[in-house]
């Protein structure tokens, strides 16, 4: 499973998107694009990513750019995981 797929699954679980998650593409907007994407959702998603990938996200790394699209989030995660 690549990072986009893994994160799509995390989004599906965290936001309870069900089948809606399958229609998310890399360029799908997250912040502002998915109504459920609020601050509590962001915190749940970061928690799940940390657990799944085994790294810790610093708070200064949390920015709106990272959560813009599925691709931008996957890029961020891949860069963190490679470090």
């Amino acid at each position: 499973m690549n990072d986009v797929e893994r994160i799509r699954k995390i989004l599906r679980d965290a936001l309870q998107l069900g089948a809606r998650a399958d229609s998310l593409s890399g360029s799908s907007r997250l912040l502002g694009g998915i109504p459920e994407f609020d601050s509590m959702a962001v915190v749940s998603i970061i928690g799940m990513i940390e657990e799944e990938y085994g790294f810790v996200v610093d708070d200064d790394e949390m920015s709106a750019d990272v959560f813009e699209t599925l691709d931008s989030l996957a890029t961020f995660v891949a860069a963190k995981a490679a470090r």
Partner: protein
Amino acid sequence: MQAAFVAGARGRILVVARRPAQQRSAVLIVPPFAEEMNKCRRSFTELSHALAERGIATVLPDLYGTGDSEGEFVDADLDVWLDDLSRVVEWSSAQGCPVTALLCVRLGCPLGALLARRWPGRFEQAAFWQPVLDGKRFLAQFFRLRVAASMMEPNKRESVEALRALLHSSGRIEVAGYELGSKLVGQLDTLALDARCCADIGAIHWMEVLRDHAATLPTPSRQFIDAQRSAGHEIAEHTFVGEPFWSSVEIVTNQQLIASTAEVLAARPAMRVANHG
């Protein structure tokens, strides 16, 4: 169902008790923190029905400064919560329904462990739901709620570090609608799930909901359980697959978790003779 106000250390505490006609004993629910409590209320109601069918009462307090209990959240701290939980245990005994088991949820696990320290041997068993092991890490995640909210506003950027500086200067900090006082924050910073609870409580059922069948217990949980088992303590692990009932956007309940909890708490440990002297 009975709702009663119990005299707490600093104000009246609302306790909701569900008592079946042929009750034997009660399970005290040690609640999770802040919004997580609201996410869990439906689970608690369903569990109380499942336990009542098995002749067991449920006692659910709103901690000081939360729900319909008196006090302000900003004035709450672990000491007052523990004192109030102790009073609720005593109140239930006085009502002829002694608390013999705990259901500790999230931050309620380290809190329940501290409660058990006050009464070693009193609780025959406890179910731990999705235990928080490290208060400092839990608090960092809670503070993130405010950092995440600020992220969504243009030209506003907060950090946990800046929030802590603000807390230091003003003595309080508001996160996601909850105002935390500096005493509570200081206590949470050093709070950890006390391993001695495994000696204080007869048997522990460690229960976690995982995201899928391939997932395993998080490493800190694994290490805690293994260490306690090698020390000879009775600690059973139960895992379930489902959505995070304590944090999900929509309220969810996990039927298997609720059914298993009712089952294990209704089966009193046969190996131990409880002495509530």
